[in-house]
């Protein structure tokens, strides 16, 4: 438990300065020293892309740009995966993927999920890994954060007069206002939210690349391979048959895998493999990297929007949820594995499916954090967790806004915040509003749709799958078998990507069903709040005061937490009762 608390303290200690940095580096409304540092690189990239870096988009253009780029990326990745056998950078001669696994893989990585229905080192060429996989591992977290930035500018940012901006600009050296007044250049008056490509570039260049470089260097130091040479063939000490050890540019990929809430590792068994996670220090770095950017994002948004207290309230709910499930999982994994009852190891914690070198606590902590943040990388097998541990993992993914994926975690929280604001406004006798903007039927219809999609997709696909057992092909019948199916779709919808495994999930049904869950789970909860923010921006803003709903007070924070529990978790309770809870209660 001490290790757990230390990790939380370390996480917050590191996220604080990073968040402050991100808040300054990513705010397009002010000039900072970072502009001089990164400006030239960004200028070149922008010029290559033919984008005016001071341009700005309307919310609908932004949304369209996100969708267009992702369709393009999915198409490209799909083609690369299917034809990798014919393409260069394939020293191990890996053949092309079949169409459905390739489509699933493309969509899975394009949605920041990295759910893998294949084994990385054996089924992907270096070209696929570096060009398709790693590109998406950078662009997808950047996209989540970019959409959050657009929403922040639109909805959260306090109404500052334009004089603040010009004062800032005038205090910086003349002729050096890199993208500082995107609002001023917006073609449609004030109804613009920033520029998708400008945001994307800034996030990759200013945050993801430097951090990944840092983490990759630490990992290389700790012994993670980083090479473009093919697999190494070694002769074992006992002089027997030669063993082939796959390798490649592993360290850089692992860095962005952990930092970018991606989760898809170089090797199939992910960070359980010593080559991907060699030492205690590497494990610590990779664990902190899971939540680092999501936590820092809260601070960054607080800085950019000026709503520090709101972000503190949100952070408090997230930390509370995080501590509850982490404690549940850690305690559960300290209990012995029921399957080992009566054996000599009885009484030890549940080490089945765990690396003995990490032990139960660090495996449980990773499991908890990786499901909270929609990362999905593992350093232990989730399938082998005790039932209550599995319950904690599932709860993390149902909620999916306990920090959540980069950008999208907070966006998802905003969805619940909107619902809470709707109910809260009524409770103080005002027509529903959010930040002084009226929430009306159109907004509620789309918010409702985004909320409805989760049980519809997860429970619907689970029900169909278990109703036709010929499709399921899972290794366990009964309660645990249900948990496995439920976990797979939950992981896909939550864009988590971790697996309970034990499913024959390389088949077309699984691939296509998961593609549906992945796409809906990614784009609906991410883009509906953007649209709502855009609609709200066009409405009048009521000044906030004594008579209006304060989103910062303890009562409202509690209301939001209650809405998350009742609207989200309660819906999944029956399924949880039939899965992990029944499994736990029927243990011998």
């Amino acid at each position: 438990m001490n290790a757990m608390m230390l990790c939380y303290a370390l996480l917050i200690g590191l996220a604080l300065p990073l968040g402050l940095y991100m808040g300054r580096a990513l705010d397009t409304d002010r000039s900072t020293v970072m502009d001089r540092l990164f400006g030239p690189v960004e200028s070149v990239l922008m010029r290559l892309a033919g984008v005016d870096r001071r341009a700005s988009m309307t919310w609908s253009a932004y949304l369209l740009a996100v969708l267009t780029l992702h369709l393009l990326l999915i198409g490209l990745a799909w083609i690369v995966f299917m034809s990798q056998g014919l393409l260069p950078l394939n020293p191990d001669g890996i053949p092309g993927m079949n169409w459905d696994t390739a489509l699933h893989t493309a969509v899975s990585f394009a949605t920041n999920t990295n759910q893998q229905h294949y084994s990385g080192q054996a089924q992907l060429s270096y070209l696929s890994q570096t060009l398709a996989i790693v590109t998406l591992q950078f662009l997808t977290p950047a996209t989540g954060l970019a959409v959050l930035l657009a929403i922040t500018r639109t909805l959260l940012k306090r109404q500052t007069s334009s004089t603040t901006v010009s004062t800032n600009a005038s205090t910086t050296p003349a002729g050096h206002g890199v993208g500082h007044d995107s609002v001023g250049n917006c073609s449609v008056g004030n109804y613009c939210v920033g520029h998708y490509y400008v945001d994307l570039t800034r996030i990759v260049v200013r945050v993801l690349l430097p951090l990944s470089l840092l983490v990759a260097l630490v990992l290389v130091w700790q012994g993670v391979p980083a090479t473009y040479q093919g697999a190494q063939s070694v002769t074992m000490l006992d002089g027997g048959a030669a063993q082939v050890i796959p390798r490649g540019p592993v360290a850089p990929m692992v860095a962005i895998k952990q930092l970018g809430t991606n989760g898809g590792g170089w090797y199939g068994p992910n960070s359980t493999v010593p080559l991907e996670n060699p030492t205690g220090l590497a494990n610590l770095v990779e664990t902190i990297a899971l939540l680092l950017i999501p936590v820092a994002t809260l601070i960054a948004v607080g800085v950019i929007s000026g709503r520090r207290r709101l972000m503190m309230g949100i952070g408090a709910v997230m930390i509370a949820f995080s501590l509850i499930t982490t404690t549940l999982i850690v305690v559960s994994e300290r209990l012995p594995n029921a399957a080992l009852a009566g054996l000599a190891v009885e009484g030890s914690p549940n080490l089945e499916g765990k690396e003995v070198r990490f032990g139960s606590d660090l495996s449980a902590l990773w499991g908890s954090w990786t499901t909270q943040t929609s990362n999905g990388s593992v350093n232990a097998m989730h399938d082998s967790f005790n039932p209550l541990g599995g319950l904690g993992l599932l709860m993390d993914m149902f909620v999916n806004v306990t920090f959540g994926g980069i950008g999208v975690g907070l966006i998802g929280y905003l969805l619940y915040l909107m619902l809470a604001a709707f109910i809260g406004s009524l409770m103080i006798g005002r027509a529903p509003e959010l930040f002084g903007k009226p929430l009306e039927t159109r907004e509620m219809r789309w918010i409702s749709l985004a909320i409805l999609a989760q049980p519809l997709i997860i429970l619907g696909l689970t029900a169909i799958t278990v109703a036709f057992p010929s499709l399921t092909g899972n290794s366990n019948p009964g309660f645990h078998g249900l948990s496995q199916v439920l976990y797979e779709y939950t992981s896909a919808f939550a864009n988590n990507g971790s697996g309970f495994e034990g499913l024959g999930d390389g088949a077309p049904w699984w691939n296509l069903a998961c593609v549906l869950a992945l796409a809906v789970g990614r784009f609906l909860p991410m883009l509906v709040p953007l649209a709502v923010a855009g609609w709200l921006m066009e409405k009048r803003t009521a000044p906030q005061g004594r008579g209006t709903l304060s989103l910062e007070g303890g009562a409202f924070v509690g209301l939001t937490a209650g809405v998350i529990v009742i609207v989200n978790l309660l819906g999944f309770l029956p399924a949880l009762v039939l899965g992990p809870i029944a499994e736990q209660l029927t243990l011998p």
Partner: protein
Amino acid sequence: MAMMQTHEASQGLRVRPLPLLGESLRRLNPRSLARNPVMAVVAIGTLVCALYTGMAFTEDGGQGAFALIVTLVLLATVLFANAAEAMAEARGKAHAGSLRATRGELTARRVTQSGEETVAADQLRRGDRVRVIAGELIPADGEIIQGAGSINESAMTGESAPVLREAGTDNSGVSAGTKLLSDELIVEVSVDPGESLLDRMIALVEGASRQKTPSELALSVLLSTLTLVFLIVVVTLVPMALFVGIETSTVMLVALLVCLIPTTIGGLLPAIGIAGMERALRANLIAKSGKAVEIAGSIDTLLLDKTGTITLGDRRATEFAPCQGVDLTRLREIAGVCSLQDPTPEGRSIVVLARDQGATLDSPQNAEVVPFSAMSRVSGLDFADGRCWRKGAPNAIARLVQEAGGRVPGDFEALVERISRHGATPLAVLEGNVLLGVIALSDVIKTGIAERFQQLREMGVKTVMITGDNPITAAAIAAEAGVDDYIAEATPERKLELIREEQAAGRLVAMMGDGTNDAPALAQADLGLAMNSGTQAAREAANMVDLDSDPGKLLSAVEIGKQLLITRGALTTFSLANDVAKYFAILPAIFAASVPALGGLDVLDLHSPESAVLSAVIFNALVIPALIPFALRGVRVRAASASAMLRRNLLIYGLGGLLLPFPAIKLIDLLIGPLF
């Protein structure tokens, strides 16, 4: 016909079980159920259970009795919801009906080109002119275009003191059913049959034709979504349970569904909306749409006319202040005598004050009265012997003094300013070319109004006083009454401008007015409240009309609006929070037969699966009638900040809703447990 309506109306105010049951059953028809998705799902669930009951009785070992009881409880749930709506509607109609009853069989004297003809009131069209003679009832809503008369409006307002209505003034509007007491009027009818204010109001309280208000619509979307979510949850539970080898009982699943979907708020939502309109009606406020009532709750800025709202209306003389060297008794006498012929309340109050202070005022002989005019801004007496006395606006009098070759005393300006600063209106008195002094006319602020404004400030509502007074007077009254802001020397244009400014800052603005020149501002305001005595233009432009013509009504409107919204929010929260306990009662019961270990989730230790499920559905059903009085009466609105209100309501309806069902379900289980 009028008699029948009154009879019906008085019936609606009491609960009569049999007609109510009949009305509730009548509302089971699919078309009226379809308007409410939540209750429609309950109704379908009832049908499913009924079918299952039929099958269970024909099979061996079927749980026929249990299924039958669940079916009946579900049916009761729907009927309770219907009864709530029917009761709210009956109350609303009763109020509207008693207002309408008075004009059931009115006849009208329609003025035509060839003369006059007598027609039934319901044949009058907009634009018709009717002649009304003293002692008759006004046949239709309209505007006096010729004549003046005193009218008894007690049929509309309950107030029996007659009021004066006159053509060409701001008080030219008349309502159908009110009685002309004196004189003779020509009234131009302003509405077609079925479109009068009352007809519109009745539509707001009639369930079938009622239009949902904006936030009610948005809430319905949310409730429908939650219903769908739980429908998905329960339907997908069947294959999942089968996969792990559990056979689920259809009846229990329907019971689970009905308990999870927000039936409490779903069942009471129409009743809450209707009751909100009815409360407005009871306050003699006639809303033209439900939206107007709802928006009242969100008002940020209240524009209040000083006269009648903040002050009693009539200024009264409170002090005679002589200039240096002038005898007080001389000032008193001249001021008093000048006012003897002045019929205005101000004039009378000067006479009263002078006499109270011991002056003996004799009617002037050989004097001609110089009436007040807006041009000269003075009035007074011209005596045959050439003497002239004047009283009037200080600067007008000062000019007169100078024209007459007199001198303005040195302390005159100071006197005028002192009186103005205290919120009073100075009136200067002149004898020949000697300026005698000043009379102070003070506004009398209504008792309790400052507390009312304090409460509004607490609730975050900004109050702005509108007055035609000069800035100094306005500031003093504003300070005394405790309004947040004031506008002095206000014109209708200035009012309109102010409303636009406030709206541009994002605020919702409410105002009250009666004059034709108020009409643009009334239309611009988010909540425009016209006095019933006001002109037709004002009443058309407004979205609410106050039958009492009481300028203080804006405050009641705000309260009624807030009450409507809070009641909805509170019951939504309560309904959702109830789900937790119901889960703990029903889920173990559904699975316990196949997986006994799941009985461990039964934290309430209920008697048997059947009694657990029944206890939950019975609780779910009984909550609706238990809360009908609450829905009809509305949550009490307290003057508190939004945060305090949210904390309080969350504690009562959120936490209360979370905890209450546990003991309640346990209690029901203890009562019915022995039967199963």
